[in-house]
């Protein structure tokens, strides 16, 4: 595939982008800047002290988006990138991040993205992050994303993180703190195969009265892959939190799920549920009676879970 097609394909997979996005964007490619647009409301600037960018969203920015995809198409690139988001008050913004690695070579390619968010009062942020790897080379594809976020009073953060495939090793770490009436929603979707290893460590700390969190993690582990989940909820006030983990295990995969709920206030209400199991035989049979083959039925069931 020509370099340009690889690039287009990766952009589509990780950011649903067909063309140059609307609104603000910053495209990082092979550790360099491949494109940027600032708008009236959203300003992106390159950090001077370390690799990465600062993203500023003005107070009152409504219904705007910013895309910050990262592409690695050369073998042997390893990078550590710091992205800091400063979201003003009363905003409603969509942030589409995501990283695609195409590694045809035999050296390892790695992207470690460290994202920090300061979210102003009553702002709503939707943050979508997709990770995807491909390429026939023997070089490993590695991503270790880290996220820290602080939500001011009344703010909402919705995180959708999706790891679609092709990443050999991931160690994900997330820490989010929520002030009064702030709301955190995390949806994690992970599929691993072959010899891939995934570790996901997510902590939400509910500090304010009226704050809430919902962590919903769904995964499928195939082949010889391993998955390890540590979702943790801490309630330090009159708050509500719910962790739900559902995994389907296949082949010779291994999954460990270790949810923790920790209450430091008599008014904290925290719930966790975790389930691991193989696809139920009667689910496959039911879909076969509707006309699907056994393989199609399995695909539907997995696609549903990871939706």
């Amino acid at each position: 595939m020509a370099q340009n097609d690889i690039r287009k394909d990766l952009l589509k997979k990780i950011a649903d982008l067909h063309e140059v996005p609307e609104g603000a964007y910053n495209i990082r490619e092979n550790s360099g800047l491949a494109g940027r647009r600032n708008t009236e409301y959203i300003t992106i600037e390159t950090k001077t002290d370390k690799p990465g960018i600062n993203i500023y969203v003005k107070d009152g920015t409504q219904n705007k988006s910013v895309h910050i995809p990262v592409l690695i198409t050369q073998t042997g690139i390893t990078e550590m990138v710091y992205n800091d988001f400063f979201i003003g008050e009363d905003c409603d913004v969509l942030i589409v991040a995501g990283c695609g690695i195409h590694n045809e070579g035999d050296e390892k390619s790695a992207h470690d993205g460290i994202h920090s968010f300061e979210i102003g009062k009553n702002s709503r942020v939707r943050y979508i992050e997709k990770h995807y790897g491909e390429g026939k080379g023997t070089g490993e594809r590695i991503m270790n994303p880290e996220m820290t976020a602080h939500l001011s009073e009344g703010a909402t953060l919705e995180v959708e993180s999706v790891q679609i495939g092709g990443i050999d090793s991931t160690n994900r770490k997330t820490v989010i703190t929520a002030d009064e009436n702030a709301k955190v929603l995390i949806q994690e979707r992970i599929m691993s195969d072959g010899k891939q290893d995934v570790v996901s460590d997510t902590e939400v700390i509910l500090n304010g009265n009226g704050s809430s969190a919902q962590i919903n993690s769904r995964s499928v582990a195939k082949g010889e892959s391993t998955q390890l989940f540590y979702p943790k909820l801490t309630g330090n006030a009159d708050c509500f939190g719910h962790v739900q983990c559902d995994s389907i295990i296949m082949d010779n995969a291994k999954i460990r799920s270790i949810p923790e709920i920790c209450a430091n206030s008599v008014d904290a209400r925290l719930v966790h549920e975790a389930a691991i199991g193989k696809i139920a035989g009667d689910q496959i049979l039911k879909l076969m009676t509707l006309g699907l083959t056994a393989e199609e039925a399995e695909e539907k069931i997995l696609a549903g879970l990871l939706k």
Partner: protein
Amino acid sequence: MLRLENITFKIPAETGKTGTILDDISLEIPDGKYIVITGPNGGGKTTLAKVIMGLVTPDSGRIFLDGMNITPLDVTARAAAGISYGFQQPPRFKGITVKELLQIAAQKKLSRDECCSYLTKVGLCASDYLNREVDTSLSGGEMKRIEIATILAKNTPVMIFDEPEAGIDLWSFHRLTKTFREIHESTGCTLIIISHQERIISQADEVLLIADGKLSGRGLPEEILPQIDGIYERACCKLGAEC
């Protein structure tokens, strides 16, 4: 015509138990008939339906659909050949919506109106259910009705429903009996309903009585209904209960 020849099914060896669940059952069901299968719990009705759908492989015997021997066909091939089966206990699916399930059954994209018409036939309001996931958040009765709607969407020449009325409220039950009559009249399908309900039994063209793994009676509803008490009493004697 659906024809079963000497179907025998024994308790699978891996369970460590022995016994015959279906004992040399032979029967013919002509096209376009409305058949109700009834009989005591544990008599073998569900197992018989599963044998027809291919969900269970009999130890011996053969099954023919319109003269074709479908015994070697798997479930998918039997679905393609024109058989569908609504489960007694339908499985649930995380992340698959009612609309998607209907579309899988119909094997095509369905408009909102088409989906609505299937759901209305089972007494569900489409706007409340179309985008809901078919997961554990649905009640037992809702699940059963969605299961019936998928079979209606599939619309095959042979439709088997396993205790469709189970867990369904009285109002919806009334609607459902009407739906079965309408479906049967409008599509001319062979309708096979496993049921314990007199109201469903009485609208059948013919009733099959399955007890103790055998076809122990067959006839018009008015002929079979009076025999039912006797059959149920014998069944409970066998279980060692006081009669």
